[in-house]
């Protein structure tokens, strides 16, 4: 075990997989000479050369699409879309093509593609650069959508994604890169795609979250513990396929559920999970499911306004107390 940052974890995963498999290569805007807009691939160009570290034009459609094409032909591309906001320019390639090729052509075509991208708000970048539209990508069967919340999961899930034979959309939260955590050194350490994980055990209420909001939820759980409230925190890790079982099992134990996501509430992940829990554990619920999510506004630049719109630790605490009927 080593204590490293989320950024180092991603970087390690890429490096290890590139050494393990000659077919793995990376491509994207500014990933080579510059070293990556978020410095994840710094040094890679010198280490692996231009063939496997490919700077591209600013052209998200063909970045995603050419990576998908290379995957069709048997390579293992990891394409970087600089931010998830720009992935909308590549949306057609991701959802109309990569996600559908295997099914539509009856299994003849495989597309073992990873698209890494950076999402989330909170850095005063304004409405177009601060979105958390993860759920949009999770809507499409055929795509796998992964969004780790800890350095260990970041490394283990990215390695799994690269080894996976399906297209994986891999979302890294911009404000998690400096987060530190214990990460196994073992080069074959993998975290499974499609398996939710209990990050903290508790009996009084269940919080379901992922990515940056996992960290916010864990902070809320620490504060609640000081008041004697023990919440269980379930980390989704993968948004599609969505692993419901640990959530249902937890709700059967705690009887109360709060879902915390950074994206907008409407049609969101909280809506999906609340409805699954209603279908599977209705009789176990002692309170309506509460959703903590972003205010339904495009994120503003002003720091105070932006923070008002984003879910905070206090919002999570209040929601947990709501479902426990502890608020006045």
């Amino acid at each position, binding site marked *: 075990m080593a204590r490293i940052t989320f950024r180092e974890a991603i970087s390690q995963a890429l490096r290890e997989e590139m050494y393990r498999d000659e077919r793995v*290569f990376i491509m994207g805007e500014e990933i080579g000479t510059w070293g990556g807009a978020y410095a994840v691939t710094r040094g890679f160009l010198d280490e692996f050369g231009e*063939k496997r570290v*490919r700077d*591209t*034009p600013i*052209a998200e*459609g*063909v970045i*995603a*699409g*050419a*990576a*998908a*094409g*290379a*995957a*069709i*032909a*048997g*390579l293992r*591309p990891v394409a970087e879309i600089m931010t998830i906001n720009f992935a909308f320019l590549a949306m*057609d*390639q991701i959802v*109309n*093509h990569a996600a559908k*090729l*295997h*099914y*539509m*052509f*009856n*299994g*003849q*075509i*495989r597309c*073992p593609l990873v698209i890494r991208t950076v999402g989330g708000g909170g850095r005063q970048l304004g409405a177009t650069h601060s979105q958390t539209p993860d759920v949009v990508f999770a809507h499409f*069967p*055929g795509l*796998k959508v992964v969004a780790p919340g800890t350095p260990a999961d970041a490394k283990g899930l990215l390695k799994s994604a690269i080894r*996976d*034979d*399906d297209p994986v959309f891999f979302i890294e939260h911009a404000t998690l890169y400096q987060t530190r955590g214990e990460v196994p050194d073992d080069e074959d350490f993998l975290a499974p*795609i*499609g*398996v939710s994980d209990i990050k903290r055990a508790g009996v009084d209420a269940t919080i379901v979250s992922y990515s940056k909001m996992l960290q916010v939820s864990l902070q809320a759980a620490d504060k609640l513990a000081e008041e004697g409230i023990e919440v269980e925190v379930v980390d989704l890790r993968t948004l*599609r*396929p*969505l*692993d*419901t*079982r640990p959530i*249902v099992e937890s709700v059967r134990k705690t009887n109360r559920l709060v879902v915390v996501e950074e994206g907008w509430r409407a049609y969101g992940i909280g809506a999906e999970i609340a409805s*699954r829990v209603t*279908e*599977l554990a209705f009789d176990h619920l002692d309170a309506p499911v509460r959703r903590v999510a972003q205010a339904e506004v495009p994120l503003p630049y002003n720091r105070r306004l932006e923070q008002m719109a984003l879910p905070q630790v206090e919002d999570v605490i209040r929601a947990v107390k709501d479902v426990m009927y502890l608020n006045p």
Partner: protein
Amino acid sequence: MARELSKQDLLELYRQMVLIRRFEEKSAELYAEGKIGGFLHLYIGEEAIAVGASKALGEHDHLFTAYRDHGWAIARGLDPRRVMAELLGKATGVSGGKGGSMHLASAEHRYWGGHAIVGGHLPLATGVGLAVRYNAEPDAVLCVLGEGTTNIGYFHESINLAAVWKLPVVFLVENNQYGMGTEVGRASAVSHIFQKGCAYDIAHRQVNGQNVLEMYEAVDEALAHARRDGPYLLEAVTYRYSGHSMGDPERYRSKAEIEEWRERDPIQRLGDALIAGGTADAAGLDQVRQAVEVELAEIVTFAEESPEPADAALWEHIYVNPIPDRQEVTTWHA
């Protein structure tokens, strides 16, 4: 230089074009009978392009097309019975009945589809070109698109990247004069599509898409260039006799215009040339056409008698590596 074609080669080109035309005419009938669903885009009038180009393709070369793809599938060597079965949505179809007319493919033939989002396959074809270069393979990629596609962003993004990386991709534009019902001059600032190659400083030329031999030679040359030096933009000037798809009211063109193009019919043209050159006589060509009728009957019988996909096929091939079902309601394959 393209290889000199033998008498047998020439007759085979003629046979393929006749087969594709009759296949399409039969498809229209089956569509009218309600046996083919969805959209159906016929290739009638454009046969020389697919047949000539496919003759130039090497066994290991890669092919991408748009949705007007029946002719391409047949010319590339896919079993026409299985192509028709796909149109009828049968389990024996080339895409198992899950793709339909617009989504034909055969990995075995390196035919990677049949793509129905205009322009969507250009980045994919570029990526296959990247893989070919990455693996230092000698192959090329033929990416077929309509002239309407040259106005979309992907056209620019893909050709630009292919040129920057010198990828072995031939972008073959089938300029059939209309993007659905919009005449090329009303949609594209440049009506001679091949001139768009200037923007990327890549090799480009125009070819008569109604002449199968010229198509063969032009694609052969373009593929050789692509293998050696990178992308090539080839414009084949052609015409579709049928509507954009079945049910096209065709308010955008005159009957006279269609008749004018029919006088340059690619099948008639090759037939006349074969007779004039002494390669075949009228009776010989008639024999070819009769043999096609026999084959066509077999094609339709095979497709009609093939089974529907099993119910279980609905859930197959969503993922290569499905996630073990950890949910209690097993119908949630989410």
